[in-house]
């Protein structure tokens, strides 16, 4: 009897010891992981300076798409090929004095009446010159080319411009690592209509259907096995 009691207590001891060893085995990698991650954090900061240095002298450039010079406007007429005929703004405005009083589209009598203007409370001449229609103007009257339109936008949209410069506004493509390749970025007016800059509503066109688990029928492999 006492024999079996000893056997039982020995057994209990063995089991407890095994459990403790097992627990240690589980915990140890976790602890090691903790220490390790602290250690790597330190090394990471040191390597990051070198990476920073390399990107400070990038081999490749970020190019911003530029709008083509001078906007054109539809005449509402069609040419022989059926294309809409457009004219450069200067065609009319070189010999027509603007009406300074015109503030909104509703005030217009001839052209531009289909124009959507929904851009805060600014008026045409906030951005357009009253005489030089081949370029835009900044708030202080400085002339700015259509290709440099972003400078104009940035006057009011500072935070957006700041985000843009840090890659957090506007579409882009190419390389994140400028030591390996160039990057291309959209221009403000690629996505925003300057007269009605709110980003357009969109209709989602793509939806994963996996929840329904439709059976594929056209894949050769599934055909093969289905045939059996």
């Amino acid at each position, binding site marked *: 009897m006492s024999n079996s009691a000893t056997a039982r207590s020995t057994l209990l001891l063995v089991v407890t010891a095994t459990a403790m060893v097992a627990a240690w085995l589980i915990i140890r990698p976790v602890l090691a992981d903790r220490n390790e991650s602290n250690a790597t954090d330190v090394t990471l900061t040191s390597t990051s300076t070198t990476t*920073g240095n390399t990107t400070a002298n990038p081999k490749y450039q970020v190019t911003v798409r530029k709008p083509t010079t001078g906007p054109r406007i539809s005449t509402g007429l069609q040419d022989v090929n059926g294309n809409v005929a457009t004219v450069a703004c200067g065609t009319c405005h070189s010999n027509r004095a603007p009406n300074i009083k015109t503030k909104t589209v509703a005030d217009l009598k001839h052209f531009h009446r289909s124009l959507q203007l929904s851009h805060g409370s600014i008026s045409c001449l906030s951005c357009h010159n009253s005489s030089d229609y081949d370029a835009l103007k900044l708030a202080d009257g400085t002339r700015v080319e259509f290709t440099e339109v972003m400078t104009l936008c940035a006057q009011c949209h500072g935070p957006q411009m700041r985000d843009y410069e840090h*890659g957090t506004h506007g579409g882009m493509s190419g*390389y*994140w690592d400028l030591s390996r390749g160039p990057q291309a970025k959209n221009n403000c007016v690629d996505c925003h209509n300057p007269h009605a800059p709110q980003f357009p509503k969109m209709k989602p*066109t793509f*939806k994963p259907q996996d929840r329904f688990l439709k059976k594929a029928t056209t894949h050769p492999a599934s055909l093969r096995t289905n045939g059996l």
Partner: protein
Amino acid sequence: MNIGTGNPDQKNTSLPILGQPTSRRTALKVAGAALGLAAFGKAISPLMAIPENVSVDEFLQQHYKELSDDDKTAIFARLEKETREDYGADVKISDSRPIPGVKFGYAISLSKCNGNGKCMEACNQENNHHRGVDQSYIRVLEMSKGSLDMDQGNTTYDHTVPQDDKYYMPVQCQQCDNPPCVTVCPVEATWKEDDGIVVVDYNWCIGCRYCEAACPYHARRFNWEQPEIPAEEMNPDQGYLSNRVRPQGTMEKCHFCLHRTREGRLPACLEACPTGARVFGDLNDPDSDINWVLKNKRVFILKEDLGTRPNFFYFFD
């Protein structure tokens, strides 16, 4: 035939199958066993289709980390050949390794994302996803303004976006620093690489789906069947650990387009985003865009309380 005598030798003589076929019962048993075996063979005959799909080389293939460069060359050639045979597409399989010193991070501006879902589509095309179900590593949740509770969210919306009272939150693999999916895998078929990307060896995974249960972000996808991809839509630029055609019965997940990003390029979902809500870059580079976001925006991570330590961030402008 007295079995009760207990002499093993004597018993041996009465062994039912090896013993004397004189006994009617034994003969019947042999017949029954043979019939049973034959029926079993017939029952599992659908397995005969497998040798066509699984070659001996594939069966014996070692874990990715054990492969020598020669092994890899041979394996990639085999996989390219299989893709040509099964899908009629010529592809090139590469093996981009992490760039030393780089750790990837990804951030999404919830103020900009408008839920149009172009990222999901780009992922589908870039990564040779199953076209039958329009698979993608990304899901975009339409969330109610005023709440971060995903219970209020919905992924199946199909009206014009953005809706006035909603905001949109894309979710994909968060490349956790403490990834539960890696911990639970019984065969180390999934692991975290030096640049932070969690990858899967599609030729090592046994398909137990434990990682799918463990991931708190619904980031993992199982290949319930062989993916279907038309030859003309196949992306030929393929990575062994990323977008090559995945075999049936294995797990896959977002890999930050490692065949692109490890070559310095931006991920496909970022390029597809028309709003510029997505920011990608090197967390170890203090001048990177991603670090600018982390320093200057109000950033949060999903399900922070779970301790997964994601490298995927969300922010509002």
